[in-house]
């Protein structure tokens, strides 16, 4: 095996560009996934069947079909009748929507995990529904939810290279592009692979630590 540091050096500037795009995708995707997931979770608890049912169906469908195909769908199909978006924007939205169906589950489990007695105590104190959610239920749910959400951020990180396939130049996209031009495959892809592990491992350590911290009141 011949490892060429010169190739690495040549690739590095583009690599850093890719890191930036990966970070943007991750950040944007996380924001969408966290907020949209909460919307799903609340909708799934709705009393109205015609809200609950479609939301359940849609999230179930999105969660059980491949992100890659969803990205293709967003990239190629949506612009036919909707707004046209850059590959990065498409990627961010795709990641966000896909993972929102996972975070919805996380929120749901977190909310269901708050003991029924808490709801009853809130009723007995005559707290309004809004105050009950804001002061009692969500603060308790969040502790269970945060570590699990963190896990999905790491998962999203590892799925983020898919946006390279629709042309967003994240780390993998840059490597692919660079390789196609120079026919140097080993160094760029190895570098990117290591980068993912180097980012993901401390992140999961952090989450495990967080989990322990938040486990108790």
């Amino acid at each position, binding site marked *: 095996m011949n490892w060429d540091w010169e190739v690495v050096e040549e690739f590095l500037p583009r690599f850093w*560009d890719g890191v930036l795009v990966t970070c943007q995708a991750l950040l944007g995707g996380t924001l969408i996934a966290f907020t949209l997931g909460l919307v799903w979770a609340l909708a799934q608890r709705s009393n109205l069947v015609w809200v609950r049912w479609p939301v359940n169906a849609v999230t179930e469908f999105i969660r059980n079909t491949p992100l890659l195909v969803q990205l293709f769908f967003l*990239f*190629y199909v949506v*612009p*036919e009748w909707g707004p*046209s*978006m*850059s*590959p990065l924007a498409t990627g961010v939205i795709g990641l966000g929507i896909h993972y929102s169906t996972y975070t919805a589950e996380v929120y749901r489990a977190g909310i269901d995990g708050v003991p029924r007695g808490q709801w009853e105590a809130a009723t007995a104190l005559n707290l309004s529904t809004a105050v009950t959610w804001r002061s009692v239920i969500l603060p308790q749910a969040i502790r269970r939810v945060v570590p699990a959400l963190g896990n999905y951020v790491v998962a999203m990180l590892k799925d983020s290279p898919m946006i390279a*396939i*629709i*042309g967003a*130049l994240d780390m993998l996209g840059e490597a*692919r*592009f660079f*390789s*196609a*031009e*120079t*026919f140097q*495959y080993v160094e760029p892809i190895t570098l990117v692979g290591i980068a993912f592990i180097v980012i993901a491992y401390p992140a999961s350590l952090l989450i495990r630590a967080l989990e322990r911290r938040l486990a108790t009141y």
Partner: protein
Amino acid sequence: TRVGSADDTEGGNLLERLRDQGTVRVGIAGEVPYGYINDEGELTGEAPEIAKVIFERLGVESVVPVPTEFGSLIPGLRAQQFDVVSAGMYINPDRCRQVIFSDPDYVMLDAFIVEAGNPLGLSSYEDIVASGARLASGTAYAEIDYAVAAGVPRDDILILPDQVAGMQAVAQGRVDAFAGTAITVREVVARNAEVESTEPFQPYVDGEPAIGAGGFAFRPTETNLRDAFNAELHRLKESGELLEIVRPFGFTEDEMTDLTAEELCRP
């Protein structure tokens, strides 16, 4: 599963093996009109049609398509996923270091897909620089380098998977122009009234005209096959059959050439 690596025979014995099998696998990138799958799900295109004729004459009856992404053609060839790249791939020095080429079967100018009426009046890479128009091209297309050579910042070029995406991107106003070979562009714009093709133009790199001449690529070890292929190709050229084969795909006399791979591979 391991794929057997290339054998050591001088010049390779691939042709004999292909004859034995009766099939040859050709790599295509799904680019109309060079090599693609048609509505019927069958292999066609300028290069595959030439390949079919030549391999028939070489004693290999069936030509099996292996569609792949353009950027994976050379790695795929080297990885023995297919035996020949039959995608109208441009011959250039970089690629010549990875694979060996037949002599070119066509030469090609570039063109842009632009919005109908070409509102920005784009007709060369220099125009893109001057007008600040947003340019797109396909993954690993040679046009990217031409544009960069003309002064378009590399990071400003949107890389799309293929010309259909390019056509849609232009139609939706995501980019102002999509750069491809004149024939690719001509073919794809025919399907959408919102876009049109510019006049073909000659790209320049460092003042030199960048000649887009496409041929068939083989693994570097398979010189025997390449030479046999070349011989048949020359016969087709001389007899004029070549033009007849490729005419249905929009090629004309203008695209015929006598250049050799050797000239094109020279840095």
